[in-house]
C-alpha cells in the first residue's frame, strides 16, 4: 500500500508538471492580461500599463516567467495574484476553507441522504416508495444545478425569506456572539448553498448506491443470511450495504476534487466566494499564478482523496470475504 501511494504520488507530480505547463501555455495564448480590466479607463496612458506589466514581470518573455514561477514554487512560494493585489497564498487561504466547508457539508449530507434513500429503495424494491424516490433522484440529476440554486435563492431566500439569500454570516455584532450562536448562524447561511449542492450529490449517490445494493442482493450469501431468519432491514443494512458501499465511496473520492472547483455557479449565486469562483475569476483575468496554484491544489487533493477513499474501501470490503 505505501509503495503504491508513492508511485501514485510520483505519477501525479509528473503529470502535474505536464498539466501546469500546458495550462501556462494555454493562458499565454489567451488574449488579455490581469490588468486589462483594472486599467480599462480611457484616461489611463499606455505608460501606466507598461509600468504595471513591469511591476509584476509581465514584460518578461513567457518562458522566463514560467521558469521563475516554477523556481519560486520549489521554494514554497505560490507567487502574486496581480488581479487581486494579494499573494496567491492569501487568496487561496481565504477561499479554500470556505469551499472545503461548503463541499464538505454538502458531500457529508448528500452521502448520508443518498445512502439512506438507496436503502429505502432497496427495502421496497419495485414498490411505490422505490418509484417515487427514483423519480426524485432522477430529477435531482437531470435538472441543472444552477437553476435549482437560482430558484432556491429567489423563492426560499428573497420571496419567502426562510433562509439568507447570500453571504456567510450575519451582519452587525455577530462577531461578538457566543460560539454556539455563531455556529448556528453559519449553519443557517450554509443551508441554501450546501442544501442545493447536497441535493445533487444525494441524487447521484442514491442512484449508484441503489444499483450496487440491488446487484449485491442477488448474491448467495444474502440468501444465506435470509435463511438464517434475519429481518429484511438487517440483511440489507448489515450484510448487503458493507459490500455495496465501496464503489460509492470510491465515486465520492473521484467527485471531491472536481467539486472543490466545480461549485462555481453555486458559489456565484449564493455569494460564497470559494475556490470555484476564485478560479473562474482568475481564468477571466488571465492571472496565471492563481490559476496554476488552483490546478496544483486540485491535483494534490485528487491524490489525497483517492488514497483515502481507497483505504476506506479496502477497510470496508474484506467483510465480504468474512461473510462468505
Amino acid at each position, binding site marked *: 500500500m505505501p509503495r503504491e501511494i508513492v508511485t501514485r504520488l510520483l505519477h501525479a507530480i509528473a503529470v502535474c508538471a505536464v498539466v501546469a505547463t500546458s495550462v501556462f501555455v494555454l493562458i499565454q495564448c489567451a488574449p488579455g492580461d490581469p490588468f486589462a480590466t483594472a486599467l480599462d479607463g480611457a484616461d489611463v496612458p499606455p505608460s501606466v500599463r507598461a*509600468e504595471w506589466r513591469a511591476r509584476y514581470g509581465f514584460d518578461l518573455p513567457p518562458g522566463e516567467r514560467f521558469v521563475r514561477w516554477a523556481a519560486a514554487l520549489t521554494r514554497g512560494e505560490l507567487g502574486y495574484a496581480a488581479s487581486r493585489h494579494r499573494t496567491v497564498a492569501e487568496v487561496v487561504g481565504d477561499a479554500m476553507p470556505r469551499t472545503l466547508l461548503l463541499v464538505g457539508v454538502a458531500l457529508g449530507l448528500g452521502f448520508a441522504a443518498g445512502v439512506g434513500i438507496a436503502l429505502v429503495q432497496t427495502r421496497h424494491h419495485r414498490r411505490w416508495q422505490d418509484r417515487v424516490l427514483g423519480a426524485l433522484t432522477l430529477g435531482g440529476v437531470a435538472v441543472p444545478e444552477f437553476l435549482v440554486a437560482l430558484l432556491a435563492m429567489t423563492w426560499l431566500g428573497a420571496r419567502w425569506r426562510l433562509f439568507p439569500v447570500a453571504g456567510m454570516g450575519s451582519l452587525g455584532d*455577530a462577531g461578538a456572539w457566543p460560539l454556539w450562536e455563531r455556529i448556528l448562524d453559519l449553519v443557517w447561511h450554509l443551508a441554501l448553498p450546501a442544501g442545493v449542492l447536497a441535493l445533487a450529490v444525494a441524487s447521484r449517490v442514491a442512484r449508484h448506491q441503489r444499483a450496487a445494493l440491488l446487484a449485491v442482493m442477488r448474491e448467495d450469501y444474502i440468501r444465506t443470511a435470509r435463511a438464517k431468519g434475519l429481518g429484511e432491514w438487517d440483511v440489507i443494512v448489515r450484510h448487503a450495504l458493507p459490500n455495496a458501499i465501496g464503489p460509492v465511496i470510491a465515486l465520492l473520492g473521484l467527485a471531491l476534487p472536481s467539486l472543490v472547483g466545480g461549485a462555481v455557479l453555486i458559489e456565484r449565486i449564493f455569494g460564497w466566494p470559494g475556490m470555484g469562483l476564485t478560479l473562474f475569476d482568475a481564468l477571466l483575468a488571465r492571472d496565471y499564478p492563481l490559476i496554476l496554484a488552483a490546478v496544483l491544489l486540485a491535483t494534490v487533493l485528487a491524490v489525497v482523496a483517492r488514497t483515502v477513499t481507497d483505504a476506506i474501501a479496502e477497510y470496508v470490503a474484506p467483510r465480504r470475504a468474512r461473510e462468505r
Partner: protein
Amino acid sequence: MTHSRFRSLALLFCLAASSACRGTDASPTGGVVVVSSGADAETLVPPLVEGSQGRVVTELIYDKLADVGPALNTFGDVGFVPKLARSWDWSRDSLTITFHLDPGARWHDGQPVTAYDVQYAFRVWTDSAVGAVQRAALAAVDSVSAPDSRTARVYFRERTPEQFYAFTYTLIPLPAHRLASLPGAALRDAPEVRSPVGSGPFRFVSWAPRTRLELSANTAYYAGRPRVDGVVFVFAAQGATVAARLLAGEADFVEQLSPPDFAQLPRDGAVRAQPYGSLDYTFLLFNQFDARDAARPHPIFADRAMRRVLTAAIDRSTIVRSVFDSLARPAIGPFSRMQWTADTTLTGIAFDPSAAARMLDSLGWRDTDRNGIRERAGRPLAFSVLVPASSRPRQAAAVLLQAQFKAVGVAVTIEQTDFNTFLDRARRGAFDAMVSGVRTSPSPRGVRDWWGTPGPDRGIQNWGRWSNAEFDAQLDSALSAPRVEELRAHIHAAYQAALNDAPAIWLYEPRFFAGVHRRLTVRALRPDAWWSGIVNWSIDPAQRLPRDRRAPATP
C-alpha cells in the same frame, strides 16, 4: 483678466449655506447602511483604484481637497464644495492655486491633515514605481509646495479651464506620517494600506475580499459626523443575487436596479426605486480599419456614406424601449446628457429604413441572389459585432441590432467574448463593429480620449480609430476656451461634426434607479458618485434591525 472667470462665488455661497455642503445638518440617527454590490474593490490604495467599487470605498475613507458640486460643473471652480481645503485662492496668472486646509481635519488616528500630506500624495501620484492609474490627469501640475503645515500651494505648467477640477478630482491627500517611509513600489500591498487610515467621514473597520467590507462612522469628522453609524458593503457576483438581497430586506441599498429587477419590486413599498442621472452611454462603434489588417481601411465602414446609411437603418427608440422599457433614453452623441457640456440641439441621422434601403441600392449593394442579404461585386454585406459576455443590456442591444440590420439586407454575426478578450481585441482593432459602453467623468475631456484622433495626447480609447480634423480642432478650442459660451459653441461644432461623420451609432443612455429600502432615507444621488451625500443619509430609528447593533468597539 480671463483668470478671474475661473474663480467663483461658490465659496461664499457654500459658507452661506453653512455646513450643508460638507457635513451633516442634522442629528445622528444611528443604524448601519448595508449596500449590496456586484463587484468588490480590488485595492484600497487610492492611486491604484480604477474600478467603481474601489472609488466608492476610498472616497468614503479619504476626503479630497474639494469636490464637484451637484451641477457637476468642471469649469474653473464654479460650484465646487470645500472638503479638506476650507478655502483656496488663485494667483493672478491662474498658474498657482493655494489651498487652506481645514484646521479641524484629522486623520483617523488623530493626527492633523497637513499640507505635507498633499505634497506627499502628489509625489505618490507622479511616482512611476507606484503606477497611479489617473496620473495623466495631473500632467499639467508642476509641483506642490507647503509654505506652512496648513497651506498647500499647487503650481501648474499651463492654464486650462479645468485645471482646478483635474487636480482636486484626482488627487487624494494621503497620510504622509504613516506611509512616507515606504518606497513607491511597496505601496501596493503594505499592511499600512491594507487597513487604511483616512480623513473622510468613515473609518475602515474590516475587509474580507469579495465577501464584505465594513466601515464605521468617523465621529470626529471635521465637518460633522455621519448620521448613520456605519456602512457595510456585501458582495455577490451574480446580478440576480445583488438585487435579491435588497428585496429580501438583507440590504438597504443597491446602486442600480436592472430592468428585470423592476418586475420583482414588492408591492408593499418596502423597496423603492430612486432615479438619478448616469454618465454612461452605449454605442455601436464602427472600426475604420480592417479587422484582420490594421493598415487597410475597413471594406464597409471606411466609407462615410455607408456609416450614415447603416445609422439610418437603426431604430434606436425600439432598442431602448425593448431593453430598458423607460429606464433609458436614446443617446444623442459622444457624451452623456448629465455632463454640463451636453448639447441637445444637435441634428442626428433620423431612422428611415426605406431611405437606407434606397441608399444601399444606389451604393451598389443589391440582393442579386435573393437570399435576403445584399451583395456588391460578389461580396455579401456582412460584418460581426463584438459584445462582452458580462453585459446583458449590450448583448440584448446586439440581438436587436442584428434583427434590424437584417431587415435592410445586412448580415450581422454576434461575437460574445469574455471581457478580457473583448478589451484585447478592441485595443488591437481586431473587430468590425462592437457594442461599447462609456462611463464618462463630469468633464468633457474624456470625449477627447474616446473620440480624438489616436495620438500621444488623445484617442487612447478610440478603438475604431476614427479621425476627423474638424472634430479635433473644435474640441481643442473648446477645452481651452476661456469663456463658457465660447466653450459651448466649439463643443456644439465638434459634436455636430461627429454626428455628421457617424463613427458610431449612439444607442442608449441608461437612467439609473437605485434600490432603496423603506427604512433608509437618501438624499439626491450625484450621477458620478451616488455616495457623495452619504453623511446625510439616515435610517428611521423605528425601523432598526438586529444587524444595526455594533460590536463593542475595540480600541
